[in-house]
């Protein structure tokens, strides 16, 4: 374990200690919110990583290319949408999943749409959203998001030069995602 990678965390921990001495209640609040978010993270991050690991080991590249690769068409888009919508957890939990999809040969646009779905049409959150803010608000949110993120996905893919796209695929292959 490389301790230097924790230097930012260490600095923030020091700031929290400082806050506590400056103003007890604000300091405690910062610690409480951090702990609460950390708990929330432990609720979904470990199983997501296990599933990513299993996917990496068991799903052959050829299968993924057939499912979500260049030629997969509408099927690839649908799978990206379902994977993203069935998810749980904040967007940063989707990055390792997206990386393993790319590693296995999924098309970049579909992976980007998967991230879009994860960030807006996640089923557990949609239910929560409509309960908190109303069905009309939520339906408009979903409609705009799907249309917006689908076009953005293809647009971004087009804007990335072929060479740098190649580099992303190489990067995910060489590193443990």
């Amino acid at each position, binding site marked *: 374990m490389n301790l230097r990678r924790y230097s*930012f965390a260490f600095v923030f921990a020091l700031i929290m200690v400082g806050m506590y001495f400056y103003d007890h209640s604000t300091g405690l609040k910062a610690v409480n919110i951090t702990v609460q978010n950390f708990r929330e993270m432990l609720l979904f991050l470990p199983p997501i990583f296990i599933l990513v690991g299993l996917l990496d080991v*068991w799903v052959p590249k050829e299968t993924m290319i057939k499912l979500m690769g260049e030629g997969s068409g509408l099927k690839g888009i649908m799978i990206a949408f379902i994977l993203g919508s069935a998810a749980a957890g904040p967007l*940063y939990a989707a990055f390792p999943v997206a990386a393993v999809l790319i590693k296995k040969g999924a098309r970049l646009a579909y992976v980007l749409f998967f991230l879009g779905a994860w960030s807006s049409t996640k089923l557990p959150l949609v239910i929560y959203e409509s*309960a908190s803010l109303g069905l*009309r608000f939520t339906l*408009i949110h979903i409609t705009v*998001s799907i249309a*917006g993120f689908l076009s953005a996905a293809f647009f971004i893919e087009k804007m*990335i030069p072929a060479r740098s796209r190649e*580099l992303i695929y190489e990067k995910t292959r060489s590193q443990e995602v």
Partner: protein
Amino acid sequence: MSGAILYGLAIVGLLYSFAKDRKKTKMAVLKAWKSFANLAPQLLAILMFVGISLAILSPATISRLMGEKSGIIGIIIASVVGSVTLIPGFVAFPLAAALLKGGAGYPQIAAFVSTLMAVGIVTLPTEINYFNKTVALLRNSFAFLVAMIFTVIISRVMM
């Protein structure tokens, strides 16, 4: 709830994998651990940063800044706060509902909620690590654009 489903899926997957091939299962777990260890330092820093910011910014302050009459300025503030903060969805939506009751306007809440979920400034370095700078910046810019389109539509429909 969804956490339990995820754990269930992971456990069933592990057991099935273990029954089929022990070596491969061990590899999968090792990969899972490596990815987690990779993300952990950044994540810890992000969570602490968010904790500190939210402790300083109280819901009352946020509510005042995004009030019904705050107009475009309120929308801009809401979208910036949403882009920067990282609040779990199960906290964010009740918070948004509370802000709405506390006097925040629908467009401001729309800007807050949509940027909160899709735009991540504090997680940008993490995102760049996984993809690259161009992809991460473009994805966040477009997510912001989609959020703004949503906000405009909401301000037309919900007023």
